[in-house]
């Protein structure tokens, strides 16, 4: 099978979706759906920036995250460090086994708080 593809277009994988809401005064939940890699890193960064502006604890609900690579991990790590610097934290909930495996492999699980 030989494929020669043009640029990504509407027929390609769909872009990740982000939705945030507050569950407590200091806790903002950011629901993320899709695949997180270099192609979606800017969107993830923007979504986290917006969530960080809402409070010191950002809880990323990764139930809908089908893929995560080291570029996305870098974005998560930067957010976790910014939040920690002001006494807050980044929490990650509902991470799939595949996502958890990446976190464990890179030791970023030490910086991002995993919630079962």
């Amino acid at each position, binding site marked *: *099978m*030989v*494929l*020669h*593809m*043009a*640029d*990504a277009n509407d027929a*390609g*994988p769909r872009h990740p979706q982000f939705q945030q809401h507050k569950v407590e005064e200091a806790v903002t939940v950011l629901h993320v759906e899709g*695949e997180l*890699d*270099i*192609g979606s*890193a800017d969107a993830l960064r923007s979504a986290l920036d917006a969530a960080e502006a809402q409070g010191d604890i950002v809880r990323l609900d990764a139930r809908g995250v089908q*893929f995560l*690579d*080291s*570029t996305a*991990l*870098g974005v998560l*790590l930067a957010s976790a460090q910014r939040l920690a610097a002001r006494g807050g934290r980044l929490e990650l909930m509902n991470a799939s*086994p*595949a996502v958890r*495996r*990446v976190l464990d*492999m*890179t030791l970023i699980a030490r910086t991002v708080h995993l919630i079962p």
Partner: protein
Amino acid sequence: MNDEQVQLELSVPAKAENIPLVRHAVAGFLDGHSIGGDQASDMLLAVTEACTNVVQHAYRDGSVADAEIEVWAELTDAVVTITVRDQGGGFAPRVDSPGLGLGLPVIAALTTTVEIRPTPPSGTEVVMTFALGA
């Protein structure tokens, strides 16, 4: 089962937004061979990291007009080999790297073997193997 003729060959412009296309194509190739679960996840992460390296590093000087990522995947004797090749300027230390520098360590952790070699006159190829059932 003779899998020697079964392979995937793919070429896309070296842009970040095309990496998911590569990943999905490789996923389709693996699915066609009933390769799933953690092994498939490992391969898809590794090929993503290799393609990300191309986008971030290979064509930085802008000297290649049609910068592309070429990907091959094949299954032979219960070993999946995935090769990611570019025609860029090769691997070089980059102090302003936008990433964490985790790409190659992650690839090394996920693969059975990995070789990174220049492809004269220009470019680099990353050859990753994954032994099924290992």
